[in-house]
């Protein structure tokens, strides 16, 4: 193969590689049960500073992705808050993540539903992509070792929380 042909082949391969990288980098992950949950830092929705799922290692955490412009997120918010009030403690918390939402709208949402669980902000949606979300809301139950134990695509309700999430949590409320 001549030098010119080699250069042409390399150029074509580089072009195809660039396109492949573009497709792969735009794709979302496919998080499955048992996988380690992504735990990159995010800004807090309230109070400033950053936090991450890793800060809650050793506790069960129900990570809930939501946005104020999403009607099903509004539907599930009261059930989530009620569950938090019933089960929150040193061994469990809900962790809300406002995704692709304006911080002012997110704060208004938190106030409107009186949400007491901690909230992070995922403005560019990168955390939602890391979790492989395909829409909002979605919830992920993470065990104390940081592994995914439950995935709820779509809104959760009182029944789901009672029958699917609660049985996995430590019985004694500390």
């Amino acid at each position, binding site marked *: 193969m001549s030098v010119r042909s080699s250069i042409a082949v390399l150029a074509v391969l580089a072009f195809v590689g660039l396109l492949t990288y573009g497709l792969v980098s735009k794709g979302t992950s496919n998080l499955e049960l048992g996988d380690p949950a992504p735990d990159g830092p995010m800004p807090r929705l309230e109070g400033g500073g950053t936090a991450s799922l890793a800060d809650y290692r050793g506790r069960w955490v129900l990570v809930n992705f939501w946005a104020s412009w999403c009607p099903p997120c509004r539907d599930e918010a009261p059930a989530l808050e009620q569950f938090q009030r019933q089960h929150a403690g040193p061994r469990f918390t809900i962790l809300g993540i406002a995704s692709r939402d304006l911080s002012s*709208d997110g704060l208004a949402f938190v106030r409107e539903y009186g949400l007491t669980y901690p909230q992070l902000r995922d*403005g560019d*949606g990168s955390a939602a992509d890391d979790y492989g979300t395909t829409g909002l809301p979605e919830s992920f139950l993470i065990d104390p070792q940081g592994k995914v134990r439950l995935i709820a695509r779509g809104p959760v309700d009182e029944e789901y929380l009672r029958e699917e999430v609660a049985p996995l949590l430590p019985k004694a409320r500390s």
Partner: protein
Amino acid sequence: MRLRPLLLALLPLAALAPAAVAAEDVTLAEIEREVMCPVCGTLLQLAEAPQAQRQKAFVSRLIEEGKSEQEIKDALVAEYGEEVLALPEGEGFNLSAYVVPIAAFVLAAIALAVAAVRWRRAGGGGGPDRPAAAGGPKGEDAERLDADLARYDL
């Protein structure tokens, strides 16, 4: 001295004047053409999703506050990240979005020019002022071609 209360009353209006001028500098339509709806993945001007409506309201609010185009874009980036910009800022790694296409165009133009020069040197550019290429008709074929051309009075 009777003017003094009047001037004091007008003072807040004077403070609003720069904001009003700045607001005229940028419109919602202009911003919509240059930023993305992060949920829809399209330009904001094409998006009708609930999130896009919130984003448009946010931009309108900033325009009313007299923010400049750059300030509005900065605010959107603070909320949604760099990907909210339809065209990335021309600095750092983002500069490649502008440099790479230009470099590719220049390289392609140089490659075409080099190829054209080589093609001409090889005798591929046979025009009316040049002898026919080596691969042209010869002998009987050339005579038949001349006869045909003469018949059609070309």
